[in-house]
């Protein structure tokens, strides 16, 4: 029998309260397994070994002071990167799409991240998770 593996998600956001809520929502009923980090440096280290199915990263951290680090993550994960932007920004979206990653606006409700994650995973893997 094949047991379905729980998709692993790396959450990169400096806002602790938000991260906690998103982690709780995603991990509800064991649907996803979430590792949460607050800076890009740690994110790069955590992402080695290709052990995540999706990397959820805040746009401010992605395009912050250390863009090369973010580029490194995208180089390894490409379409398995979802950039979440606090504000609606077409410029950010274009940058993200050009890199091959995905873009979404930060929803008010942390629970709504579940839909975004499901949709990104589906795009990346071609199947609904």
């Amino acid at each position, binding site marked *: 029998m094949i047991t379905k593996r729980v998709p692993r998600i790396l959450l990169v956001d400096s806002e602790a309260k938000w991260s906690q809520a998103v982690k709780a929502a995603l991990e509800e009923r064991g649907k996803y397994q979430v590792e949460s980090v607050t800076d890009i440096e740690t994110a790069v280290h955590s992402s080695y070994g290709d052990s995540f199915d999706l990397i959820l990263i805040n746009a401010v951290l992605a395009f912050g002071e250390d863009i090369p680090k973010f580029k490194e993550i995208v180089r390894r994960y490409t379409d398995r990167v979802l950039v979440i932007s606090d504000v*609606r920004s*077409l*410029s950010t*979206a*274009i940058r993200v*799409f*050009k890199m*091959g990653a*995905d*873009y979404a606006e930060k929803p008010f409700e942390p629970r709504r991240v579940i839909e975004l994650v499901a949709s990104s995973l589906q795009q990346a893997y071609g199947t609904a998770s």
Partner: protein
Amino acid sequence: MGTLSQERPRVLIVDDQPNWREALCVVLDPTRYQIETAANYDEAKHRLQQRAFHVLVADQRLVDSDESNREGILLLDEVNGLQDGTQAIIVTGYPSIDAAKDALKGRAAYDYIRKWPEKGEPPFDIQYRERVKEAAEKAGLERRKAITLGFSLSMLINGLTYEGIAENLFPAGTMSCDVVEGIRKVVNRLFYPLQPLARQVGKVWLSVSDQICEILCWSREYSKAALLMIGKEQGLLEARKVPWLKESWRLIKDEQFVSVPIVGISYTIDGMEFEDFAALVEED
């Protein structure tokens, strides 16, 4: 030998609004690019079929009165289907995140540029000029990787004999069996990438008679029809007369080289227009 990479890059500009069409041309240096324009989807599609472009610049909305029109982005499917390294840039006065995603992620556009950039961003003309330059360079690189039908072969095979081929590759007097083997390898290497390309052209005749395959296709590099003949076994002796061609060719069999098992020879058919080619294939 003029390859596309040495030529001025060809740019196709597609916009339904004449003033923008003109502006998109004027901004580019005409000594640097060969520029063609199209005013709508069908015209652009036709031009893309006729010849190979380095860069396609397409306005997102090609019918100004229709707010939902995204035919410029749909042109990317035409470009991608041709697989000859053409890079596409979408320009638009009506940008949206959804359309940008469709163009960049969904259909592999090179870039998506707003005609009215946000505050703090470089002006449109500067962005546009820079992106076209980069895209043309990228297309040149891609193209060098891809070998297109009727181009490399007819360049390589100037004469119809192996000798002719060899003379193109090796200095006089250095020809040997090794040379022939070398030619066989080169021809095979050239031929295999050509098959899918020939199919992409869409209108292909492939008739396999005893030992000869004939593939007729449109060479977009040359803007000419090309006939490729492949002998499956040794001794590609005489090309069949192709009914619609005025001349028939004879391939001279050189006794020295009868052991060569597979050869490919292409003819570029001069003077044939795309319309004639298309009509010819339609008839079939």
